[in-house]
C-alpha cells in the first residue's frame, strides 16, 4: 500500500521536525483564546513558501489538527471556545474544571481527539483515492458545477442566513475576477494601481480571517472578558486513558458523527461536536448529568471535532470542495504550491499526497502525547491577555502578507478586505463564503470558458452544461443544498418566533 511506502518519508528528519514543531505550536495557538484554527492556518501559509510542497502541506495539516484539539483548553479552563468547534466541549468541560477536575477534562479531551483523529485520517486515506479516481470522468462542465456546488454549500452553511452566505460567495467570486481578463488579455476591474495583480489568495485569506479577529479581541479586552481560570489537580494519565477508552459508545458516536459531518462540504466542526454531543445525550442512561460536568460530553464532542478534520479533507483533496472553512484555507495553500486537487494529485504528485496523509496520521499520536504533556502548563497559555494577542496578530498579518510577494499593495488589499469584512460581519455576513468564492471563482471561470468553447463546437453551450448524468446530478445537488438551507433557516426562524411569543405570554400572565 502507498501509505507504507511513503511512511519513511514522513518520519525523515526534516518532516518529523515540522510535525513536532507544528503540533506544539498548533496546540499552543489553539489553546490561546481568540485564535481560531482557520486564522492560525491562514496566518502561517506565507511561511510555508520557504519550504518544499510536502513540508509546507504537512505543517498546515498538522496545524489544523492540533489547533482544533488545542481549542478545547480555553473552552475547558476559561469557558471561551478556542475555536467554534469546541463549543460542545465547553458545555461539560468547563463545569468539570469548576468542580476541580480540570486536568481530568483536558486528559479526556486529548485522548478522545487522538482516537477521533485517527479514525478521520483513516477515512481520508481510504476514501480520497477512490473519489479522486471517480473525478477522472469530469470535464470542464462538471468541474464548473463542482466549483459552484462548493460555493453554494459553504455559502449556505457558513452564515446564519442562507441568502447572506450566497451573496457573500457571489461577491467573493467577483473579487477573484479582478485583475486579468483571460479572453482579451487585458486588465479587468483595475480601479487603482494596487489592484493590478488582482486579489491573490494570501492577502484575502489573512485579511478576511485575521483582521476581524483583531477587532473582536480588542473589543473583548475592553470588556475585560476571560478573567476566570482554575487550578489544575494532579492526576495520573494512565487512569484517564483507561477510563476514556472504556467509554466506547461516546467515542463511537463522536467519531462516526464527526466523520459523516466532515464529509459533507461546509458543515464545519462546530456542527459535528454539537450533533455528536446531542446524540450521546439521547442515548445516555443519565442524560440529566450532561451540561453539569459529565466526562462523556467532553469525550463525544472532542472525538467528533477531530474525526471531522481528516474527513473534511476528503472532498477537498479529491474534488476541490473543502469540507470546512479551515479546509478551504488549506485548499488555498495547496493551490499556491502549484498542486491541484483531483486524480492528478494521486498520480503525478503521489509522493506529496501520501506523505501528507501519512503525516496527518502520525500527527494524531504526537498530538495526544504533546497535548497530555502541555495540558499541565495550559493555565499559563490562557493567561495571555487579549490585547497582546490582538497586537501580535495584527503585526503577523502584515508581515505574512508582505513576505509572499514583497508587495505593499498586497498589504493594503489585506487590510482593506479585513476591515470591510469586520463591518460586514456586524451585518451578518461571514468570511467563509467570501474566501471560498475567491478560491473557487477562477476555477469556475476557467472551466466555464473552456465549456463555452466546447459547447459552441458541439450542440450549444446550454446543452453542454445542462445535459449528461453527472451534470444533472451536480445541478440537482446545488439546488438541494440551497433548498435544504432555506428550509433549515425557516425552521430556526419559526422556532425563534415560537420562543419569543412564548416569552410574551409568560410576561403577560
Amino acid at each position, binding site marked *: 500500500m502507498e501509505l507504507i511506502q511513503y511512511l519513511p518519508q514522513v518520519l525523515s528528519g526534516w518532516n518529523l521536525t515540522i510535525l513536532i514543531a507544528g503540533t506544539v505550536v498548533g496546540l499552543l495557538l489553539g489553546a490561546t483564546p481568540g485564535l481560531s484554527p482557520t486564522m492560525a492556518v491562514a496566518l502561517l501559509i506565507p511561511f510555508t513558501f520557504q519550504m518544499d510542497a510536502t513540508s509546507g502541506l504537512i505543517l498546515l495539516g498538522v496545524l489544523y489538527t492540533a489547533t482544533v484539539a488545542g481549542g478545547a483548553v480555553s473552552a475547558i479552563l476559561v469557558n471561551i471556545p478556542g475555536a467554534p468547534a469546541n463549543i460542545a466541549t465547553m458545555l461539560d468541560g468547563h463545569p468539570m474544571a469548576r468542580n476541580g477536575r480540570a486536568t481530568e477534562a483536558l486528559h479526556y479531551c486529548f485522548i478522545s481527539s487522538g482516537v477521533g483523529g485517527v479514525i478521520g485520517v483513516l477515512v481520508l486515506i481510504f476514501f480520497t483515492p477512490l473519489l479522486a479516481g471517480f473525478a477522472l470522468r469530469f470535464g470542464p462542465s462538471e468541474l464548473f458545477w463542482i466549483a459552484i456546488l462548493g460555493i453554494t454549500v459553504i455559502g449556505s452553511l457558513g452564515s446564519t442566513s442562507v441568502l447572506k452566505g450566497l451573496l457573500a460567495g457571489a461577491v467573493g467570486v467577483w473579487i477573484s475576477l479582478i485583475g486579468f481578463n483571460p479572453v482579451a488579455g487585458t486588465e*479587468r476591474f483595475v480601479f487603482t494601481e494596487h489592484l493590478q495583480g488582482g486579489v491573490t489568495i494570501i492577502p484575502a485569506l489573512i485579511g478576511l480571517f485575521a483582521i476581524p479577529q483583531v477587532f473582536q479581541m480588542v473589543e473583548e479586552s475592553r470588556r475585560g472578558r476571560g478573567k476566570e481560570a482554575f487550578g489544575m489537580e494532579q492526576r495520573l494519565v494512565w487512569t484517564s486513558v483507561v477510563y476514556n477508552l472504556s467509554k466506547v459508545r461516546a467515542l463511537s458516536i463522536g467519531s462516526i458523527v464527526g466523520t459523516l459531518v466532515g464529509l459533507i462540504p461546509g458543515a464545519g466542526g462546530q456542527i459535528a461536536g454539537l450533533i455528536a454531543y446531542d446524540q450521546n445525550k439521547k442515548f445516555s442512561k443519565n442524560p440529566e448529568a450532561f451540561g453539569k460536568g459529565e466526562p462523556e460530553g467532553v469525550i463525544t464532542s472532542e472525538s467528533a471535532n477531530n474525526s471531522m478534520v481528516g474527513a473534511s479533507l476528503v472532498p477537498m483533496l479529491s474534488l476541490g470542495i473543502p469540507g470546512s472553512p479551515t479546509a478551504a484555507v488549506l485548499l488555498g495553500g495547496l493551490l499556491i504550491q502549484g498542486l491541484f486537487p483531483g486524480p492528478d494529485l494521486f498520480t503525478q504528485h503521489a509522493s506529496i499526497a501520501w506523505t501528507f496523509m501519512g503525516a496527518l496520521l502520525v500527527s494524531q499520536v504526537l498530538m495526544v502525547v504533546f497535548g497530555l504533556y502541555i495540558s499541565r502548563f495550559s493555565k499559563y497559555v490562557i493567561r495571555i491577555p487579549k490585547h497582546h494577542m490582538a497586537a501580535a496578530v495584527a503585526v503577523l498579518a502584515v508581515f505574512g502578507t508582505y513576505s509572499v510577494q514583497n508587495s505593499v499593495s498586497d498589504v493594503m488589499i489585506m487590510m482593506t478586505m479585513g476591515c470591510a469584512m469586520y463591518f460586514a460581519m456586524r451585518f451578518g455576513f461571514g468570511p467563509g463564503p467570501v474566501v471560498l468564492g475567491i478560491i473557487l471563482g477562477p476555477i469556475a471561470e476557467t472551466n466555464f470558458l473552456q465549456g463555452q468553447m466546447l459547447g459552441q463546437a458541439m450542440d450549444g453551450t446550454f446543452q453542454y452544461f445542462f445535459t449528461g448524468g453527472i451534470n444533472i446530478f451536480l445541478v440537482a445537488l446545488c439546488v438541494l443544498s440551497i433548498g435544504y438551507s432555506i428550509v433549515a433557516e425557516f425552521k430556526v426562524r419559526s422556532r425563534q418566533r415560537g420562543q419569543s411569543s412564548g416569552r410574551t405570554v409568560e410576561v403577560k400572565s
Partner: protein
Amino acid sequence: MTSHRKHRLTALGALLVAVGLATVSFMPSVPGYEFPQLAAIGAVLCAAILVLLALVPRQPITTVDEEPIPWGGIWPLLLILFGFLLVMGWLGFFTTSFLAFFLITQIYTPQRFSWHGAIRGAAIAALFLGVLYLIFVTVLRVQVPSGILV
C-alpha cells in the same frame, strides 16, 4: 434604531453593492466579462430576495443577525492600522510594528495607564519583534519593508 429597521437597511445596502458590481460588470462591451456578469447577476438576485423578505412582510422572514458597530471602541484600532500602512514604507516594518504593538496594548489594556505598565508593554513588544526578526530576517532571510529605520 430597531433591529428590524437595521435588518431592512442591511438588505438595501447589500442590494446597492450588488447593483454596483453588476453595473461595472456590464459597462465594458468587450469579451471576457461574461463570468463576472454571471457572478454579479447572482449577487443581485440574492440581494433582491433579501430585500423582498425583509421589506414586504411586517416582520422580516429571514434571521435578524445584525449587531451594532462599537465605534467608540474600535476607532483607535482603525487609526493605528491606517497609520501602519502610511508609515511602514517610511519608517521601516519593525519600527512601525513596535509602535503599533505598543499602542494597541496600551490603548486596549483593561488596566489604567501606569509607567510600569507602559515599560512592560514596550518590553513585550520588543521581545516579540526581536524573535520575529531573529527567525525570519536573520535565519530565513525573509524581506520586510525597510525605511529610514529598521
